[in-house]
């Protein structure tokens, strides 16, 4: 069994602030994360068509994207930069990815040696595993995706990456059903319970390989569940999925994302895991987050708030193309770097808590998800996860219920506005979560029966059950 966090790293929410973590980490070429300075992390995507050959894709990532980014960091006087390569699916083949991993490594080393800029590269591998075919080694006879997953881990670690990450998909078969049907129990079962087991399975192996090669095991995200809910809940004019649902789903997802650190991941975790603020409150490890400066990838309702306690600040992803101000990645690095510069100035002037609260209050009531992720509320959700830390089911349920009650309290004291439909869905979720069994075995039995026909891809063997 993996280690479990049963105590909070931060004794109060007030202690948390951007740029500082309880367990700073050093790696790469001069990179120090969570050690008193926020670091920009730039993520990018190649242009369509460049994935068709090894040489063309390597050129796109290394010669164009990475070089453009490093040159712009020098131009604007940024002291630190982390590059993040989120692999396109074609890179699951080692002959496609290995030259990119080693090429980026060589380039950042050259720039660090020549200019002294602090640099590192994170590689985030694709998780192509499919529940219907099998999530664990030996189960997928059709595509062998679990084996390909581990090949990707090896390729990252053997070719000079600094940080290894993934956006894993365990529990996604339930998350998709849950989000489209507004079923919070299905989300709890899939993401909070089964997803945590899958995280433990993959992260133990990932940490082992990473340690062998002295690569940093960064962290994970519930992009495939909580972010799907958040994006479908959308903005003010979108209501396909209720925002109270996505907010509670986010709280549950934190219990799952926590498993990576429990297996030995050290952070910085993944930028798109908006639940990272809750995880940081529990673990004290460096967090990577995204928000206002990732509008190139998507819009959400907590653009400023997400910067409140982060240690890395990301743009999520931008496709490489020309803009008036240079290439797209140069322009978005500019927005990232200047925002980070503002945060670091606040730290230098002793104003970091003021800026943190400005960020947070800007979006605190823009929607229910921002409300539960405001650092004071996020800390409370982290606290109940730690209290039930030894039990994957109970801690995820407690996270969801606590998040839902925080929203209800915010509504009751007239701090947070809810539509009647958001309120209706919130009350239904509270009632449903409160009525669930108080132990793992009964919960499993209840869900296995309830979703037998609804989620046909569910296979207990995927989760070692």
């Amino acid at each position, binding site marked *: 069994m993996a280690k479990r966090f049963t105590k909070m790293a931060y004794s109060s929410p007030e202690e948390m602030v951007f740029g500082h973590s309880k367990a700073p980490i050093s790696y790469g070429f001069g990179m120090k994360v969570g050690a008193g300075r926020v670091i920009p992390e730039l993520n990018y995507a190649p242009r369509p068509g460049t994935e068709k050959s090894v040489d063309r894709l390597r050129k796109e990532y290394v010669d164009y994207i990475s070089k453009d980014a490093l040159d712009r960091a020098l131009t604007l006087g940024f002291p630190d930069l982390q590059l993040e390569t989120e692999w396109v699916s074609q890179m699951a083949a080692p002959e496609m990815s290995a030259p990119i991993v080693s090429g980026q490594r060589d380039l950042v080393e050259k720039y660090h040696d020549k200019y002294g800029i602090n640099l590192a590269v994170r590689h985030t591998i694709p998780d192509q595993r499919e529940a219907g075919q099998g999530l664990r080694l030996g189960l997928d006879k059709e595509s062998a995706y679990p084996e390909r997953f581990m090949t990707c881990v090896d390729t990252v670690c053997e070719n000079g990456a600094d940080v290894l990450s993934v956006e894993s998909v365990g529990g996604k078969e339930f998350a998709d059903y849950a989000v489209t049907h507004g079923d919070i129990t299905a989300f709890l079962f899939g993401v909070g319970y089964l997803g945590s087991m899958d995280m433990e399975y993959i992260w133990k192996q990932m940490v082992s390989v990473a340690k062998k090669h002295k690569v940093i095991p960064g962290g994970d995200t519930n992009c495939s569940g909580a972010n799907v809910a958040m994006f479908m809940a959308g903005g003010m004019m979108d209501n396909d*999925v209720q925002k109270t649902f996505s907010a509670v789903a986010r709280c549950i997802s934190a219990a799952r994302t926590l498993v990576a650190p429990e297996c030995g991941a050290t952070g910085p975790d993944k930028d798109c895991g908006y639940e990272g603020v809750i995880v940081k409150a529990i673990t004290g490890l460096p967090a990577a987050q995204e928000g206002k400066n990732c509008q190139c990838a998507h819009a959400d309702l907590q653009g400023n708030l997400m910067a409140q306690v982060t240690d890395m600040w990301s743009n999520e992803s931008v496709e490489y193309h020309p803009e008036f101000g240079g290439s797209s990645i140069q322009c978005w690095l500019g927005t990232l770097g200047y925002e980070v510069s503002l945060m670091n100035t606040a730290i230098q002037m002793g104003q970091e808590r003021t800026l943190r609260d400005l960020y947070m209050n800007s979006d605190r009531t823009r929607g229910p998800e921002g409300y539960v992720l405001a650092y004071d509320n996020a800390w409370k959700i982290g606290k109940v996860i730690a209290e039930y830390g030894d039990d994957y089911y109970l801690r995820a349920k407690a996270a969801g219920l606590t998040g839902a009650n925080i929203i209800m309290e915010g509504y009751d004291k007239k701090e947070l*506005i809810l539509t009647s439909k958001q309120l209706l869905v919130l009350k239904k979720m509270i009632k449903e979560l409160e009525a669930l069994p108080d132990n793992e075995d009964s919960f499993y039995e209840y869900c296995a029966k309830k979703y037998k026909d609804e989620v046909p891809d569910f296979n207990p063997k995927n989760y070692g059950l």
Partner: protein
Amino acid sequence: MSKTKIDYGAILRRYDAELENVSTPEAIAAKMLPSDPHLKEVASTVLYMKIREVGPVVMKALKEGVEPLILINKGLVAGMEIVSNLYAQHVYYLPEIMMAAKTMEIGISIAEKQIPGGRTTKGKVIMHAVEGDPHDIGKNIAAVMMRSSGFTVLDLGKDVAVDTVIATVKEEKPFMVSGTALMTTTMTACAAIAEKLKAAGINIPVMAAGGAVHRDFAESFDLGIYSEKAPQTPPIADKILAGYDWKKIRENWDDIVEGI
């Protein structure tokens, strides 16, 4: 944390709350439900997503003499049309669409067994998430909406090889094929499908959709048409059945999807 009292209304506006339609499903549906008591009861099971009740209600209506085709079209489908109306008015949302569609499909599967030769639908489409792309939630939603609108959907799943799509089109002869992609590096499969269909002399529209896809891309290759979001797919398909080819869909796209 600062204790300063903040007027959040001076910082942001909650348009979702300001513009909310507070009508109830019951109030809107009262004027739209069929008057025949059997059909009203059947339509109500769909409207209120009574998934456990639809089977017994349909069987009772059939036993009491309601023609199966009438029961389907004026009971189950009529109920789903009210659901679509509520969705368009922002009273119902995605979960209600999914549950109501499931309720309707259970009812149809019971009733159509009593129709000699089976029930005919508007036509057949092939839907899939493209090669290399595991993201299929949008496709699944669009497939439910297509079935709810009376189409037969052959759902090939996710990460479907281009050649599999081509072979299935040749065998099943749909009037449209759709591919969804969340990644710009996988959406190019839609163009590859269109190219191969054209080379085989099959000139059906190829609908490109999904998070990564934009209209400019979908219209950058012959046969390509665009759907921005799932609810737009049925009205576009209706136009194809009405005789619009891919060029005419493009020319009239804004009018076809207006307000959806």
